[in-house]
């Protein structure tokens, strides 16, 4: 049984009797549209880990046939849309399907989809014992063979590094300040993501154990030898502030710079023109902001972005807002002002504004009223009998 010694994490064993083909393919599943709160949710959280559920449900021939049909269908689709079949990418497929089968369903996952069978059919483990009933992997009887084999691998690496350390000490070349692995801007894979990779269910304690082992590996001075291995278990975080598109700075006929931006809050929409070299007048819907917002709190909301950036008396603001109530309108205007300010402000300031929460759109919306209740949360009077 040749499973040992392999860096096996996931066994996509499609064919009977083949072993050793343990490929580690890091799948980046397409991440569905996330709500704008910055909680990172992996798609694997939402899908049941069907793969680890039971034995093979689809035969390899079936999968192969599906792949063939998919390829053929792709070419047909390209012909239909009048494009070149050779250079027809997945994005083009998505676009064409959305055009040919328009769907009004709200749930995006329920709409018609044409994707490669690998993405649709869940990965499954093949039968893990041979014709006589003997398992291939030496750790089969632990129940979580991939997980334990992974732990074994990590420990092997730790031992290898220790041996390397001793060798260096013997030679007298031991130094503590070796090349360290850069870990900023990345995080450990979540338990669900590891489960997905291992095609097995693991418990929380197992996950903690694995992370502890990895940390131990990292704590050793010569861990840079296994950098590649470790980085497979880290996921890069995107730099948030690069996601904001800064509205372009336009120029008036007189040469005055101005920028236009929009903002929304709770069904109130606002649109703003921020003009440079002004004197701090603010006109909203044609009226002075003092008349439009008699409440102090709303005027404070308007003031906050300008105060934060320190450009209080510099701009003239002309805005139009509609919908919702006065607080929501003030919030929408504030977001619009912050966005318009991005084009007048430096990079570091943009990051500061993001951290201050000026650029985040408030996702709170009016909660739906449910049937059987008075309102969103209020219930009817409870009668004991």
């Amino acid at each position, binding site marked *: 049984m040749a499973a040992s010694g392999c860096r096996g994490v996931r066994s996509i064993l499609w064919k009977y009797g083949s072993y050793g083909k343990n490929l580690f393919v890091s799948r980046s599943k397409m991440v569905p549209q996330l709500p704008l709160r910055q909680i990172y949710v992996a798609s694997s959280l939402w899908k049941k880990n069907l793969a680890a559920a039971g034995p093979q449900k689809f035969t390899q021939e079936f999968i192969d046939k599906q792949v063939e049909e998919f390829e053929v269908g792709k070419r047909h689709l390209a012909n239909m849309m009048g494009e070149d079949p050779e250079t027809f990418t997945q994005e083009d497929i998505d676009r064409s399907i959305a055009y040919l089968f328009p769907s009004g369903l709200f749930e995006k996952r329920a709409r018609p989809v044409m994707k490669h069978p690998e993405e649709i059919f869940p990965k499954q483990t093949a039968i893990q014992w041979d014709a006589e009933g003997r398992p291939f992997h030496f750790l089969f009887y632990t129940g979580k063979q991939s997980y334990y084999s992974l732990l074994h691998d990590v420990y092997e690496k730790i031992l290898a590094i220790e041996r390397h350390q001793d060798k260096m000490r013997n030679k007298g070349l031991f130094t503590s300040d070796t090349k360290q692995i850069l870990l900023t801007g990345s995080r450990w894979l979540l338990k669900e993501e590891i489960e997905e990779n291992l095609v097995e269910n693991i418990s929380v304690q197992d996950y903690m154990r694995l992370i502890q082992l990895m940390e131990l590996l990292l704590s050793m001075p010569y861990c840079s030898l296994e950098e590649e291995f470790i980085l497979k278990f880290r996921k890069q975080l995107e730099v948030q502030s690069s996601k904001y598109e800064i509205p372009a700075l336009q120029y008036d006929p007189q040469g005055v710079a101005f920028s236009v931006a929009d903002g929304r809050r709770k069904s109130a929409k606002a649109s703003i023109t921020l003009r440079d070299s002004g004197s701090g007048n603010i006109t909203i819907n044609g009226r002075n902001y003092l008349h439009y917002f008699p409440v102090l709190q709303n005027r404070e909301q308007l003031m906050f972005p300008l*105060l934060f950036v320190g450009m209080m008396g510099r701009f003239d603001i002309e805005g139009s807002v509609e919908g919702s109530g006065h607080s929501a309108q003030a919030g929408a205007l504030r977001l619009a002002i912050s966005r318009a300010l991005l084009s007048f402000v430096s990079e570091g300031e943009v990051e500061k504004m993001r951290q201050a929460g000026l650029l985040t759109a408030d996702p709170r919306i009016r909660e739906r009223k449910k049937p059987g209740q008075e309102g969103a949360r209020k219930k009817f009077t409870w009668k004991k009998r």
Partner: protein
Amino acid sequence: MHFLFNFDNTHLSTYHSEGHSGQYYTLPPTHIQKLFPYGLPPRFQLQIKTFNEGCVMVRPPALELISYLKRADYSKPPLRYVLYGDIGTGKTMSLCHALHYCYSQGWLIVHVPDAHLWVKNCKELLPSSSRPSRFDQPIQASQWLKNFKITNERFLSKLKTTQRYVWTKRESTEKGQPLGELIDQGVNRMKSSSDVVGAVLRELRLQAGGATEGEGAFKLAVAVDGVNALWGKTSLKKEDRTMPEELTLIHNLRKMMKNNWSGGAILTALSQTGSVFKPRSAYLPSELLGEEGFDNMEPFVPVSVSNYNEKEFESCYLYYLDRNWLQHPHSRSEEGKKELIFLSNKNPSILERLCAFL
């Protein structure tokens, strides 16, 4: 740049000129008690109590008014001045400033602090004793008579009635009685107080420009705040919940507003805050007075009052700092000042309310 004039003020109002704009001057406490028992805006009265003195900023609209008053010809019918402007820009304060000038010049003051009070929220509404279709407001009338008495003490003994007034079967005031008696009559007998008010106004009208020199000469200043109440709708109702056709006090005041007498001036200010059934954004004379009011008041001299400009704002800010009114340490910095400018948009009343809790 602000400058407190701490010495004797009676002459100072005459010397206010353009150069003093933005500076504060103190109202002497005796004057405040006599002239403005109910005349000043309530928040300003609170401020007087807190700071233990009443300081008024000298501003262009008031200066304009005072200059007109200085140059007007008092043998001709009186000029009507209307102070108009946005809410909270200082119309009532400018009116009081000009009135203080008149008082210090020795004029006779007829001051209606807020005409809106006569048009809404009246507790008692009696059918008039003299005319069947009119309605009286005894409480408001007697209140006003008391204030009038306090303000114009020295004139009361000098002026005499010109005709005989009959109040009820048993009471009447003969011709030639001093005005003080008339007023006492009104204060004591609540039922006929509104008619007394009418009589007093009539007397004053007749006698204002009458004698050019000598004992009886005086100039009459009629100051009405919230003039638009006179021609607007009332929110009062009779007992059977229909609208009253006419109110005595309003009727008499309207007569006063006409310029068929001479020897004085009519100073008025519009007011949206107390007005009944008027939208908040209306501040121009045509909007607030309505057609009828506008026609009646025509011709008039409009004086517009606006928010503070830079200099005035500075002055107000320094005044509050001087009096330790701005407690928060941040408000003393440049940043804090910019915040104040933004949040209040240099509107006097909003600035005052802002600073009140700093």
